[in-house]
């Protein structure tokens, strides 16, 4: 009995909290099908912060929406693959929203969109608690809310609680949105560009808070961002996406210090470093291709400095490398 229990605990420790297996999603328009995600494989362990980095149009937000289960179908259709959360298939599924609340939460980039403009902050936080079934007693509830807001470094708690979203500043709104998410103690929080558009000092603060919260309630996080510097500072592992495909993944230090894929090289070279006397940034001209009209072979080949004959014809398969790393590039064949 005891042995089986410890086995159970052991197993749940090793088991990945979230697994995305071979997921392909396409959008259907009137005259054509556009593939948005191609053969995505991704996992998140318990208590881990995973970054998904890509430029606009890389499909990172679609992936997030699929994981949370807010992807509208139509226009989106699943071609292949599934998403497993705690051993249970959550996407595609007929059951709707069964794991939202206590399981997976999402913080959107624009807090003004995710907050309801006609309710006070207090009411919205309480609504979140109702859904998750946390603490019915009014006094204790107040205590919990105030503690969470204080942790988020909101000073004038009473005033913020009685405000409507439009009365708050951008940083404050984002903190309220994060409070609504964390008060439910979810197992996984998906953060879609949580700090873009915020002031530097507030951004730094929110990142710190999120990591503190992670340590406190052992939540896993998926951080979606276009900013490698943010990912480099927050994540344990990073996935790099380009035109709907994961081109490289690995632990943070490896990605930043020793990137494998030429696209990752370019992303890293794009970050301005040094003073005005340093040389030009090493990027190639051109922009990401139109997702409905991708070039054949490796989609990065028109911008790639190390392009070979093979890259123009065949799509590189993702390939396991040393130390939990993966890369999809013909250089490493």
């Amino acid at each position, binding site marked *: 009995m005891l042995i089986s229990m410890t086995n159970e605990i052991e197993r749940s420790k090793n088991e990945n909290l979230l697994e995305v297996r071979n997921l392909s999603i396409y959008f259907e328009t009137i005259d054509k099908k556009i593939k948005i995600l191609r053969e995505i494989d991704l996992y998140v362990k318990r208590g881990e912060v995973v970054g998904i980095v890509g430029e606009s149009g890389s499909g990172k937000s679609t992936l997030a929406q699929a994981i949370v289960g807010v992807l509208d179908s139509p226009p989106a259709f699943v071609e292949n693959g599934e998403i497993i959360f705690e051993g249970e298939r959550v996407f595609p599924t007929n059951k709707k929203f069964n794991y939202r609340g206590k399981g997976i939460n999402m913080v959107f980039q624009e807090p003004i969109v995710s907050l309801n403009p006609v309710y006070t902050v207090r009411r919205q936080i309480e609504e979140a608690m109702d859904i998750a079934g946390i603490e019915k007693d009014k006094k204790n509830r107040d205590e919990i809310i105030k503690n969470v807001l204080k942790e988020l470094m909101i000073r004038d708690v009473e005033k913020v609680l009685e405000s409507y979203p439009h009365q708050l500043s*951008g940083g404050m709104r984002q903190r309220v949105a994060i409070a609504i998410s964390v008060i439910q103690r979810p197992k996984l929080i998906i953060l879609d560009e949580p700090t873009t558009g915020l002031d*530097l000092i507030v951004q*730094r603060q929110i990142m710190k808070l999120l990591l503190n919260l992670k340590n406190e309630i052992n939540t896993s996080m998926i951080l979606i961002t276009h900013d490698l*510097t943010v990912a480099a500072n927050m994540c344990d592992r990073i996935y790099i996406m380009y035109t709907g495909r994961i081109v490289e993944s690995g632990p943070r230090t490896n990605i930043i210090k020793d990137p494998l894929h030429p696209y990752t090289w370019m992303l890293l070279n794009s970050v*301005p*470093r040094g003073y005005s006397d340093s040389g*030009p940034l090493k990027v190639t001209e051109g*922009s*990401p291709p139109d997702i409905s009209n991708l070039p054949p072979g490796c989609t990065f080949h028109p911008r790639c400095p190390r392009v070979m004959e093979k890259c123009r014809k065949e799509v590189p398969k993702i390939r396991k490398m040393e130390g939990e790393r993966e890369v999809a590039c013909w250089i490493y064949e």
Partner: protein
Amino acid sequence: MNNKILEVRSISVRFKTKTKFKIILKEVERYKIAVDNVSFDVMEGDTFGLVGETGSGKSTIARTLVGIYKPFTGEIYFMGKKIDFKRKNDLLYLRKNIGIVFQDPVGSLNPKLKVREIIREGFSIEEKYSKSEQDKLIVDITRKVGLGESKLDSYPSELSGGEKQRVSLARALVTQKKILILDEPTSSLDVSIQAQILNLLRKLKSDFNLTYIFITHDLNVIRYMCNRMGVLYYGQLLETGNVKEIYESPLHPYTADLMNANLTLDSSLDFTSQYDIGEPSRKGCIYKNSCKKRFELCENPPNDVELGERKVKCWLYKNIIETQRM
């Protein structure tokens, strides 16, 4: 060689926020001061950076410099000539010599015009060119900003973000300018496109002999692009000086906090530094409520303290000046 091309002398810009009619139809006007007593110099050939957070007045300064807003106090000298904001000729003189590129490439390009006509808008203040000369210059400038000639006949909606920003640049530079103001030119772009535009800006600067005023909230971009900079906080210029010196030894506590909060690829999030975010103070030093080093003197508004080429608005450095005098 290094002449002052632009001198900004304690300008303030305010906006009317409320007009109330009281009992005897007496008008009470309220103002929001967006830029408060700001002075700085821009030398010829400089890339002068203005950094600040939301609401710090950096865009207001940019727009004042091209005459979109009018300061209610203070003076601006351009190439030694004082600009009178009430005289139309003076404003034209400003606009002929100072170009501006806005952050939002979608909002600043007319969606109903083709790229060729958008760039032609740049000639509206210069009447000396004939139509054929204009056409030649347009083709010339599109090539210089790295835009294919084929794009001249497309509409802005057919272009990508980076291409739109190149069109904005072309429109600003199609006639000869002395200063180009760049108001967050890369903020809405992807990182790899941002890098392309930054490279292009550096190239254009030497091609056209330009002086840049570069406005951004991104400290990595400022460091990479600018040689001198100013730090703005709620309308006040707290520190100005050489970029390298400011990055290596920030003087004002706010600058120090900013530098500390900046993320780079090699930085690591430390959990020790605490930021105390307070509202900007109405009385005394504006950063008083958030400052870790505040003391009694901060209840009074500080004056600019000049330390060599640097200027800082903080009471901490008052004593240094006094000892220097003795």
